[in-house]
């Protein structure tokens, strides 16, 4: 089962090609089912691999930390420079395989219902399977170059999917913005790759690991590479400076947001950092940067989520915040905790998005102010969303609790200041999630008309919701039970034990604080949003400026818009220079030379010879000759030139 793992990314790739070119467009095309069948097969394969590796039935290769490592030469130039196309399956890879295929399968099933009335369904499924293929390629690939290739392909497919309804201007602009911002991040990744290659001469992860182990990579190079990869991760996983594209990416269909902007693509950055963790451990400065970036992103994103009214935008901010948590986890040597949080987050965030999708599907609006009291109309969606909200808010014993707790624990062991901010963010998380839940489902319906029409989504949509709900409930516990996940995904840092360092907190402090903060958030949310919104509105008016900055995403958007306008002005200036200056020098310059020579001969003629002739008019001639034009055909002028030349050369030669 494990040997043919390379089929897992290839099958969806072929299916996407088949779907794109085969079959006919339109509502009732059979292609979606083909897509789902292929994804089901992949899910089956990867879940088997995941469970076998989890339970240890497939042991690690002796002396290695991976289960499978095969490669074939793809590209070779120069004496010994070879790039291989290979597969590397280790703990994180297996986990991610399972997560990606699961969520992708559920989303595809869910989309059957969601996209039911869309006439370009065929193209949608083609892009979805292409995306999954690229994501799986990214997960399994053993060479960083192929990982980068898959990374960009994932970016392109997100561009295609965000801009799926390209007739409307919104999605088109959002798609471009997403691609450009991630491309900006990719430049950092590109720089990291170049630097890496110039020092080690190879892209292969296993070889790199041995290189770093032997200390061949100098410290400042490792730091620079780390920072480079971090910038790539910031771009792709929407961390602090480059997160602006994720909220706008909500323009795409909701299942797309669920798959790409919750569970899979956005975690690519985290996965990359995890994949090259050995570089980061050898460059503490880079690791510190990861931690702080993660922390700030988590906190700021959480604050932004508090004031947002668009249901999908709130979820987007929460995704950014949770990603921040994962980054934090990685930054504080909490390798396992980060990946654990990644897995659990995938489940409940996908659930939240799909739930929101079914709400939007029935209420046809994103704005929570027009919802309210939908629990009566949509019980299934409400309950599943409720479970997810509790999980993410940090209700103990649910999967969210386990993973977030692990991250906070690692943060505490590293630096208590981080832990404090982390707990505060957790509180904020529970506040805005509960706010969301209460606004949509509890309280009296604010828009009676929409309320009447609200109806529960069909089975194809609620089915996946229930599956995800079950996973959110039990997955955390199961994986945490007797360190199953711990065994699968761990990274022993030679100088820095998992629990070593940092003061040991009293046993009850960490979980207690988390529970307290969870309840606090719940209470506040209930107080403000369960009943009438008067008090919330009052608060908002008093802190007008704060609400406004949060609305404007701390003016990051404006900063990047200014940056774009700056580049446009620069481009216009360049083109002006090109057409005026450079062109003038070479074209008119040439004509200038020729005209100069002609002018010189004219000047010589006019000034020197014709001085007197200009007074032609004054010459008293009888009327017969009339006014004579300045005459150039003067034969005597020619004689003058000849004799002048003779005189000049004679003196020159004789006087020598």
């Amino acid at each position, binding site marked *: 089962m494990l040997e043919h793992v390379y089929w897992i990314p290839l099958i969806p790739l072929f299916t996407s090609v088949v779907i794109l070119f085969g079959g006919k467009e339109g509502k009732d095309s059979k292609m979606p089912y083909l897509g789902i069948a292929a994804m089901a097969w992949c899910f089956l394969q990867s879940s088997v691999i995941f469970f076998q590796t989890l339970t240890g039935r497939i042991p690690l290769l002796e002396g290695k930390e991976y289960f499978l490592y095969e490669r074939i030469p793809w*590209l070779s130039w120069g004496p010994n*420079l070879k790039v291989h196309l290979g597969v590397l399956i280790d703990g994180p890879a297996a986990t991610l395989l399972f997560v990606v295929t699961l969520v992708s399968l559920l989303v595809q099933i869910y989309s059957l219902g969601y996209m039911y009335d869309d006439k370009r369904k065929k193209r949608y499924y083609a892009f979805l399977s292409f995306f999954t293929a690229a994501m799986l390629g990214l997960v399994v690939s053993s060479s960083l170059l192929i990982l980068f290739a898959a990374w960009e392909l994932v970016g392109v497919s997100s561009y295609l999917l965000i801009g799926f309804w390209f*007739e409307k201007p919104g999605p088109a602009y959002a798609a471009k913005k997403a*691609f450009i911002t991630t*491309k900006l991040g990719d430049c950092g990744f590109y*720089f990291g790759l170049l630097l890496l290659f110039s020092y080690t001469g190879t892209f292969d992860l296993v070889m790199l690991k041995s290189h770093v182990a032997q200390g061949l990579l100098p410290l400042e190079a490792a730091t620079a590479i780390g920072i480079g990869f971090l910038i790539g991760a910031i771009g792709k996983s929407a961390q602090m400076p480059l997160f602006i594209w994720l909220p706008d990416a909500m323009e795409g269909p909701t299942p797309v947001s669920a798959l790409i902007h919750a569970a899979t693509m956005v975690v690519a950055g985290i996965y990359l950092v995890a994949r090259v963790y050995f570089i980061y451990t050898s460059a503490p400065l880079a690791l510190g940067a990861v931690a702080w970036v993660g922390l700030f992103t988590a906190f700021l994103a959480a604050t932004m989520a508090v004031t947002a009214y668009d249901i999908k935008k709130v979820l987007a901010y929460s995704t950014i915040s949770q990603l921040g948590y994962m980054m934090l986890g990685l930054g504080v040597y909490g390798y396992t905790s980060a990946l654990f949080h990644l897995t659990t987050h995938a489940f409940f965030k996908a659930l939240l998005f799909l739930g929101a999708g079914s709400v939007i599907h029935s209420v046809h609006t994103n704005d929570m102010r027009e919802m309210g009291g939908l629990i009566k109309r949509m019980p299934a969606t409400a309950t599943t969303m409720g479970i997810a909200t509790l999980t993410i808010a940090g209700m103990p014993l649910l999967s969210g609790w386990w993973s977030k707790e692990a991250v906070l624990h690692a943060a505490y062991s590293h630096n208590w200041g981080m832990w404090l901010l982390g707990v505060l963010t957790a509180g904020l998380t529970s506040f805005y999630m509960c706010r969301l839940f209460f606004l949509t489902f509890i309280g009296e319906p604010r828009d009676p008309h929409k309320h009447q029409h609200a109806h529960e989504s069909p089975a194809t949509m609620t089915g996946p919701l229930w599956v995800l709900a079950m996973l959110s409930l039990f997955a955390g516990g199961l994986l945490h039970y007797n360190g199953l996940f711990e065994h699968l995904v761990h990274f022993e840092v030679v100088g820095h034990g998992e629990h070593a360092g940092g003061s040991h907190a009293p046993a009850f402090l960490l979980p207690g604080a988390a529970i307290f903060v969870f309840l606090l958030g719940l209470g506040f949310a209930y107080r403000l949003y369960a009943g009438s919104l008067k008090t919330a509105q009052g608060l908002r008016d008093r802190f007008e400026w704060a609400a406004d900055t949060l609305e404007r995403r701390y003016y990051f958007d404006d900063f990047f818009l200014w940056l774009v306008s700056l580049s446009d002005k620069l481009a216009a200036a360049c*083109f002006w220079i090109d057409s005026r200056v450079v062109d003038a020098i070479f074209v008119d310059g040439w004509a200038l030379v020729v005209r100069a020579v002609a002018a010189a001969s004219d000047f010589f003629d006019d000034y020197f010879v014709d001085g007197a002739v200009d007074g032609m008019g004054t010459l008293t001639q009888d009327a017969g000759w009339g006014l004579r034009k300045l005459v150039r055909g003067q034969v005597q002028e020619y004689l003058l030139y000849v004799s002048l030349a003779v005189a000049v050369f004679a003196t020159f030669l004789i006087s020598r």
Partner: protein
Amino acid sequence: MELLSTITFLPLLGGLVILCVPKEKVGLIRGLAIFTTAATFAASLFLLGGFDPNLVGESIPKLQYVEQLNWIPSLGVHYFMGVDGLSVPIILLTTLLSFLAAIYSIGIETRVKEFFFWYLLLEVGMIGVFCAMDLFLFYLFWELTLVPMYFLIGVWGGPKKEFAAIKFFLFTLFGSVFMLLGILALYFASTPHTFNMLELMQANGSWSRSFQIVVFIAFYLGLAVKIPAFPFHTWLPLAHVEAPTPVSVILAGVLLKMGVYGLIRISYSILPAGYEWFLPYLIIIAFINIVYGALCAMAQTDMKKMVAYSSVNHMGYCLLGLAAVSTTGFNGAIFQMITHGIITGALFLLVGVLYDRAHTRDITAFGGLGAKLPVYSGIMALTCFASLGLPGLAGFVGEFMCFLGAFAYWKFWTTLSVAGILITAAFFLRMMQKVFLGPFNEKWKDLPEINLRELIAVGPLAVLTVLFGVWPQLILGLTDPTVKMISNMYEHMFQLVR
């Protein structure tokens, strides 16, 4: 049977036959032209078949399909034709693009006979440049391409065609005339006076450094105009915009490559000291080409002009590869040349398709064509993404290798050039968004979809883009052994650079 001579002079034969056909028989003329270009392409495939990439000399390039006969003994000129790993892929690119552009130029209605005569004459010049191994012969073919291009742009071009034609002619001639002086200087510097490139490659040990620098500058003037390197590139946008579509495909696809080929074959191999002196300036020019070209492209509203500036940008990558005197750099430069030929060729064809229908190339005039022309916008999207260097498509590998090679020595400039990639992505996406996405512009509701003729012309290029993207070893297998030999021909010379 001299294969190289047949490939080079087959189009000439076709051209002469076309001259004899009366003007009215347009169908026959078109048929003849396409048949000739097809035959040339087949012959070049045959050449590829028989070519053994690993047959490589030690100190100087080892040629295959060599044809050498004493052409003008009193001038010391030999008809010396030969190919090696460097020239085979480019010849294939030339014959392929000529064949596809010939198919596309069925759309030309006015003065068809003259068009195809000049067109085939142009092809002779182009192929000749890449096979000639004698400097005199090289110069002869180099200039042979000027006249047909002048007439092709001048007669069938756009509104400002005459000015563009004469500007192109004078610009290139100005450069190549200094190349002539360089060739003469080399002729007199070699002890048994010779134009033979291979002998000159061995003779350069005895030349003084200042001599090599002066001759290098003379050659560089000629080559820079063709590449086009920064200060001499202003003719390119004008010539591209005014040239008819098939001609601008050939112009972008092949003529720009003659400059880079010349840099490797002549400037580097024969004048290493000159090349080594020029390296720091070359990297700066490469950087300017990339970033400046991309920025100018960003500011364009005319689609064709934008693609023209993007060629300036892409050739900047080639220069980057050349600035890194290493196997990676050279391989990257050649790979980028080939793929740029394919991608920009396809891009120009597609822009031509739109222009033939809408008679305007203004990006802002269109909107939401994606819905109306699904197949067309699909191919256009594929080519645009390939052009901005999306991995998995042909554009990425060449670009990446150039960066890899250049990064080893010029860390600062290469890092700055990485910004070029971002700007390239920006202006291509801006164009895609304005033309294909967004609300549908009712003005174009009767635009017909891409027809079979155009599809046949663009199809193979799109397939090749994907093929070379997924499996680049196809080209690298051909060029790598030769490049390995070329790049460490002057190992000792460029040691200090490393």
